[in-house]
């Protein structure tokens, strides 16, 4: 790397760069381009494969850089599969109800933990943070869920994860930044704690609420493991678990005809697109909120 202090002025450039800096910049641009391609191409491969003719997909080897003989046939097969539709409905149920409960409980928890005056708050905090570092593990959790009678119930996808400690702490951090005088003056005017929480704190922390809503919703949309552990009946399966069965070819023999059609690579691609595009569509619009959430969380580690 050149360490020249005085460099020749370059025409039409406000900032002066040394030759070494320019070379470094070019190298970085090349690496970033390659990395972006490496991330983008496998995704586009799925997308273009999904719109290609199934027979061409079977014959094709290598990545799809464009759809071959574009068709919507694969998608018609996907949407005719009843388990995809039930999966969609179950996932939507879990996303809506689960996220609602998540956010409600996280707001309550965050509000209480952000009140510094109360004596028990520090104990509560300690108790909750401890669970981040020490967990009971899969088997004892299973026994708890079982003893509550939640096995094979859709609530088993919602209740055991009703609060994500991390998200609650993100929320708490935001609430702790609201000046104390606001809730205090409301309390003096006779407001109760729930009123302060929902009328004052929540509107003031709108952006962070948006962030945790998104975090929870994405996590619910993509979750498969709790359903895999706790659910037995296929009509209750969320989309990701159906997806797992289709993609990893665990369809039962009784559904031979269906699985024959589903075996085709192109239909697999279309299934992935159907299951993934909704969540990816959400993302670009909300990117800045997501990023903000990470940063708020990062301050606390």
């Amino acid at each position, binding site marked *: 790397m*050149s*360490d020249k202090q005085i460099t020749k002025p370059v025409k039409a450039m406000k900032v002066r760069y040394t030759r070494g800096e320019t070379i*470094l*910049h070019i190298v*970085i*641009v090349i*690496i*970033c381009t390659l*990395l*972006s391609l*490496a*991330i*983008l191409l*496998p*995704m586009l*491969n*799925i997308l273009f494969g999904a719109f290609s003719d199934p027979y061409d997909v079977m014959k094709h080897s*290598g990545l799809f850089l464009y759809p071959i003989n574009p068709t919507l046939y694969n998608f018609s097969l996907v949407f005719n599969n009843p388990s995809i539709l039930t999966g969609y409905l179950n996932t939507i149920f879990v996303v809506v109800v689960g996220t609602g409960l998540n956010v409600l409980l996280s707001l*309550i*928890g965050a509000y*209480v*933990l952000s009140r*510094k005056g*109360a*004596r028990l708050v*520090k*104990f*509560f905090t*300690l*108790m*909750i*943070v401890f*669970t981040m*570092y020490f*967990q*009971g*593990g*899969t*088997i*004892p*959790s*299973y*026994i*708890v869920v079982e003893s509550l009678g939640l096995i094979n119930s859709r609530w088993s996808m919602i209740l*055991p994860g*009703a609060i994500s400690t991390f998200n609650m702490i993100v929320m708490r951090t935001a609430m*702790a930044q609201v000046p104390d005088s606001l809730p205090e003056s409301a309390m003096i005017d006779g407001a109760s*704690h729930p009123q302060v929480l929902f009328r004052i704190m929540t509107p003031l922390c709108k952006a962070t609420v948006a962030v945790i809503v998104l975090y929870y919703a994405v996590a619910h949309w993509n979750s498969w493991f709790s359903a895999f*552990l706790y659910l037995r009946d296929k009509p209750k399966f969320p989309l*990701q678990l159906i997806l*797992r069965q289709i*993609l*990893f070819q665990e369809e039962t023999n009784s559904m031979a005809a269906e699985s024959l059609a589903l075996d085709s690579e192109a239909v697999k691609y279309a299934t*992935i697109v159907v299951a993934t595009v909704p*969540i990816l569509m959400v993302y670009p619009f909300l990117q800045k909120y997501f*990023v903000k959430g990470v940063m708020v969380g*990062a*301050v*606390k*580690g």
Partner: protein
Amino acid sequence: MSVFNLSIYNSKNRLDNEITIRESFQMKKGKSGGNSEIMIREPLSKRIRKDWSKNRGLYFLFIPVLVYYIIFHYGPMAGLLISFQNYKPIKGVFGSKWVGLKNYKDFFNSYYFWRVLRNTLKISVTNLIFSFPMPIILALMINELRTKHFKKAVQTITYLPHFISIVVIMSMLSDLTSRNGAITTFLSHFGFEPVTMLQEQKYFLPLYIISGIWQNIGWNSIIYLSAIIGIDAQLYEAAKIDGAGKLRQLFSVTLPCLFPTIIIMFILQMGKMFNVGHEKILLMYNPLTYEVADVINTYVYREGLLNMNWSYSAAVGMFNSVVSFLLVWGTNKFSKKLSGSGLW
């Protein structure tokens, strides 16, 4: 009830935890000073009564959250007791026979102990070496990009895979690395023997690591990027005046300023050391690769829920939880001693 809680609260009072670091730091002086004054004047019971009458509403509000944590977090912790039993679901926790440390001894003496321990450590150490620095490097590179739109595009694209479910990613991986998948075909131009890579033991670890980097490099870089942006520009100015080139600036300004962030992420990573992504491995491994892919958590899952060895697998899980906890605690202590920055 509240007296009991309070005594715990007092005894743990000194343990400052990571959430309250900032706020408590600001209020500590005032609060502790005031506290000790009150402590002399009023007896404990009176203070409790005062606190209760003032904050009752707050505590009632907290009940649902408390109930959740007691049932779904402390319940399983108590459930770890079954690892000292010969647990039978019909008899329940109270009816099952106590067997002491038998399950632990069985685990430590079994063939699987070394296999899962070796695989767990191998996967997480490799992950630490290869995956951990990648987001830092990416953040440093993104920071150097000069075109705004290109920078934005790189960020958007690299963040994207974070939102794709692990089921989809694993199916993409198995598709790309199958006998005639795109990656296998590409590599075969360089004399690579075309095989279904996920069925080969030697490719498991590289595929696990690379797919992990693929999915998380962008997302994990956000934290570092925001830390880099937060560095005072004057530091760079001063370094430039002293004649520091880009490389010198990197090592003398950027990295030292990033260090606290890196340490925190490192400690968190250490905590996850024994919890290698078992959701991912469950989708990725198969009996052909168990020998190199089976980690503690996947073993717990198979023994507990497929073979119904409840107590035995709870013992394995307990081993896992305890070691993880000790690792976070130890790393934190070590880093505090070394650099003064830690989680708590």
